[in-house]
């Protein structure tokens, strides 16, 4: 069975579709003849231009969800489209908060499993997916068996987004079937947290801290260095688990994937959990007192030293340069 049609779950960002949406559309074009998008919200029509430019011929517009979390209604609308005979061969879903909800709900509705943490796709008779294992030292290739669309949940930055120069996608209003009790969770208020610098997953420089910082208060050094380098501050899972910094800062397997020009790992040992989220960075600088730390196996510049000495000196030096 060749791959004829692929759907991409499209998410809206601050201005147009999110970067990962465009990455998935680009990859979808290279594995399938027809690419279609599924989107929700009250601004879908305004996304049609960019979605079309990146290769979608059609966008199924689930519309405004009335405060419901997207997982249930969007999956229900997709399953209804499929049951009406409009099934794609594969569905590409970004590994985001809402994307994973949609994937889980859809999986049960279609009685199909989900392949998650996908970082590559291989087109053949059927579509195979590639997954990093053990922090990326190995690559697992997997595929779906049996009939029905394959649901792939794909990590951001797995593919480069490239415009296809296409015209706007046709917007097709897509109703949400009644979903009963499962659709009862409602958003009552949205809180936007102020961010002074660039987004963690879009920054050209990322400075991350780990357990080697010793205590939560020392994370201020990471934030200060990030600010001086006009970058974003990240964290290892260890200090997120310890409650030093919020989950939104976490880089790694269970957190964000980053691929900045420069990644500075401070007091991070480099557990596989962390490496998988940052080893795609263009340049890696590691500062750690343990010479045997695995982070040095991926570092372009490794400083075997005490972060409590190197970081303040580095901050002073950068300030002196103005």
């Amino acid at each position, binding site marked *: 069975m060749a791959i004829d049609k692929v759907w991409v779950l499209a998410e809206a*960002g601050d201005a147009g579709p999110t970067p990962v949406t465009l990455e998935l559309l680009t990859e979808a074009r290279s594995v399938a003849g027809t690419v279609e998008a599924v989107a929700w919200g009250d601004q879908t029509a305004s996304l049609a231009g960019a979605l079309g430019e990146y290769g979608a011929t059609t966008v199924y517009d689930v519309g405004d969800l009335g405060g419901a979390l997207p*997982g*249930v209604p969007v999956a229900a609308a997709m399953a209804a489209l499929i049951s009406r005979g409009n099934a794609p061969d594969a569905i590409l879903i970004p590994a985001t*908060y809402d994307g*994973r909800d949609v*994937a*889980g*709900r859809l*999986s*049960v*509705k279609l009685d199909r*499993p*989900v*392949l*998650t943490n996908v970082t590559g796709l291989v087109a053949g008779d059927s579509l*195979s997916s590639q997954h990093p294992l*053990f922090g990326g030292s*190995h*690559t*697992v*290739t*997997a*595929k*779906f068996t049996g009939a029905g669309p394959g649901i792939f*949940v794909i990590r951001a930055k797995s593919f480069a987004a490239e415009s296809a120069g296409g015209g706007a996608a046709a917007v097709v209003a897509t109703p949400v079937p009644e979903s*009963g*009790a*499962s659709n*009862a*969770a*409602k958003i*009552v208020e*949205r*809180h936007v*947290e102020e961010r002074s610098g660039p987004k963690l997953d879009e920054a050209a420089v990322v400075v991350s801290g780990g357990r080697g910082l010793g205590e939560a208060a020392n994370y201020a050094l990471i934030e200060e260095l990030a600010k001086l380098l006009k970058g974003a501050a990240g964290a290892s*899972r260890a200090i*997120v*688990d310890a*409650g030093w910094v*919020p*989950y939104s800062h976490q880089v790694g397997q*269970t957190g964000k994937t980053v691929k900045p*020009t*420069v990644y500075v790992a401070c007091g991070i040992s480099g557990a596989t959990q962390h490496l998988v989220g940052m080893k795609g960075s263009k*340049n890696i*600088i590691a*500062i750690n007192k343990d010479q045997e730390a695995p982070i*040095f*196996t991926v570092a*372009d510049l490794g*400083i*075997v*030293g005490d972060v409590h000495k*190197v970081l303040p*000196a*580095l901050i*002073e*030096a*950068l300030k002196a*340069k103005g």
Partner: protein
Amino acid sequence: MNIVVCVKQIPDPAAPAALDPATNTLVRTGKLIMDDSDNYGVEMALQLAGGDGDTVTLVSMAPGGETSGLRTGLAMGAANAILISDDALAGSDALGTAKVLAAAIARANPDLIVMATESSDGYTGTLPVQVAELMGLPSVTFAKSIAIDGSSVRVERQTEAGFDEVVCPMPAVVTVTAGVVEPRYPSFKGIMAAKSKPVDNVTVADLGIDASQVGAAGSGQEITDVSEAESRGSGEIVVDEGDGAQRVVAFLEQLKVI
């Protein structure tokens, strides 16, 4: 109020992980421990179930009747546990596992089901929502905080921009991220008490599930290849002699970042 916490018993992440070359699945022999990620769900549930008559039940699926990880959660204060252990479950994918857990959870008749956002070993991150869909329940994932508000839960849910306040009637499935509460260490008394807390052992047949729907037989996905990835070579590693910061500055200048 009855709260169920799903607990995964996994090989110690500190021990080297390995794949079974015959099946390409993770080797799960040896002692299993409670997934670190589940500490937060157990702690959250214990804090929410503070009233008289409130109970916390652990639900876990593991091979070989394994309970060592469950005992950790029981020692923290959970009242009892349901363990699904059955040779037919070997090789289950997340959807198959969700079917088994959903059936087992229903036995505890919970008002609230708490799970980790994702496990530390398999980390598919879809299982909690699959369980919710199978049970016909609403779900709120990536909770930073959970409060009981009458017959609803009020959840602060992580978003890209910040967080959403979500209100959800119970019963419901809520997943918590790590670090949202500080898990207690089991006391000596708790560890001793855990040894005699009830663990209900159930099989796939007990749950009324057809064995062909689960395990490797029921899985709709297969691994076709495992290969070594191209490794990233390491560069210059130097011991700080007081010049570490200057070396970093020089490297950043060379990259034209500063």
